[in-house]
């Protein structure tokens, strides 16, 4: 995580007013396309207005589209969202396809806020079993035992000594030898 992201507001994936629990509502309420009629850096925006604007408005009837010519200023896309937040992006020297992509983003996101996701999921019920307690995975054997218990005072893991390991290897060899003899006898 970069340092810049530490100062971003953070949280979990969320939907305003439980959007989609009832009915889906496109969160973008209006978009203003600002451009210049003369300058070359607004060329893409002018192309977009000429060829795609009507399609865009027909596809998104819930978004009010305003077109605002401004002499000798670079082009800008400004969106306003249902929760009152704004989304602003400079469309300076962007071509028609780039503008289409940015508008697609604007219509599909919650709001234009920069937001760091702490996790990619969210649940109202983090645990099905309930919160952990010291008794959650307790051995039922302990219910009938009396304390202090010798067994619980022993170390959990004792490494095997070299003698012990040798004895085990010897026993294993004996067992295999006996097994082979039995097979030959048959």
């Amino acid at each position, binding site marked *: 995580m970069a340092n810049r992201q530490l100062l971003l507001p953070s949280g979990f994936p969320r939907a305003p007013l439980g959007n989609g629990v009832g*009915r889906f509502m496109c969160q973008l309420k209006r978009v203003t396309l600002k451009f210049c009629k003369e300058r070359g850096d607004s060329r893409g925006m002018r192309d977009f207005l000429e060829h795609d604007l009507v399609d865009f408005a027909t596809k998104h009837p819930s978004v009010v589209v305003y077109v605002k010519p401004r002499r000798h200023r670079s082009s800008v896309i400004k969106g306003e*969202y*249902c929760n009152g937040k704004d989304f602003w992006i400079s469309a300076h020297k962007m071509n028609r396809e780039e503008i289409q992509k940015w508008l697609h983003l604007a219509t599909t996101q919650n709001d234009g806020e920069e937001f760091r996701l702490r996790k990619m999921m969210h649940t109202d019920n983090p645990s*099905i079993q309930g919160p952990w307690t010291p008794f959650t995975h307790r051995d039922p054997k302990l219910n009938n035992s009396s304390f202090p218990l010798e067994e619980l005072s022993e170390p959990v893991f004792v490494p095997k000594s070299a003698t012990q390991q040798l004895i085990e290897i010897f026993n294993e060899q004996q067992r295999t030898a006996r097994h082979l003899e039995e097979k030959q006898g048959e």
Partner: protein
Amino acid sequence: MATIRGCLAASVLFRNSVKKSCVKYQVVRTVYGRKQSDERADMIRELFKRKQEAGPEKKAHRGTYLDWNYKSELFAFSKRIGETFMNGSLERAFTQRSYVLQQEATQKDLGLDDPDRVLEDNRSLAEKGEELSRDFVARYLRTALPCLPEENIQSIRDHLLKPESVANIISNIGADELILTSEFPTEIQTRVSTFYALIGAIEESSGQERGALFVRDFIIASLSGQDINALIMPENKFETLREIFLREGKEPPEPRLISHVGINTIIPSYRVGIYSEKKHIGTGDGESVKDALDNASLSVLWKMWGVPDAVFQFPYQLDVGQVLSNNQTNVPGSEWTREKISCR
């Protein structure tokens, strides 16, 4: 030949003009450049100072901006919420009484006292919508949670229809700027009455079922992500449980300490079980015996009342027709027994 000569003359003229403009530019930069930049810096400094003194800029209503078309906004709004409105009922739903009075006063000042031009406000629609939403929310909660005592249904409903929650809904569907009112920023009560008027307008245009569907999708859906348990928490948990058992004619529930650990530490843990007629009915943990007892009582109560948990999710998509035809009220807390629930 004449054209070529003409072109040459034009190019010379153009070159001269370019040269002249360059020279002029240089002169300005060299002679006055330093002084000009000082003055400019002083001006910016002064403007900044005055801006600081004047304080933050006053917020203006979105309707005062250049790019604003109220008719388009209304059209987009109706598409956004997916409803159709008959003959101007949407505009009427957004018209507050204060706006009507203001308009009448302006017209009188201008000498336009036309009795035919009367603006209708949203009071009648708001009354209608409020009645529908209060009634429908209660019916919905009773259908979704049939075992919950009636008092708790009422408390969830009161929480959902709190002025703050309803006002929050209207600001979050982008309707705040569309309200025609004399005040800015809009007050909570204004937003609440507009929301109810909106429901009234939907009911008037598309029928009761459609209005109820709007209530389900916006008011009931706002319950998602909220803690229902906190809204229906009884004051004395164990006492409530005991009363239910006594009313049913059974042995009163008996709490027993099952186990405890770390009593002399800062994080002790107790586990209490509740038994009735020698049967284990619930367990709870806590940092003190009282907490553990409360949690154990709650675990039994939630199970009996059918409160949503990790396994049973609250249903948000119940059929509106089925909800509207449900006329039964839940059993009140003072009479609540399990027999009364199972016979329904």
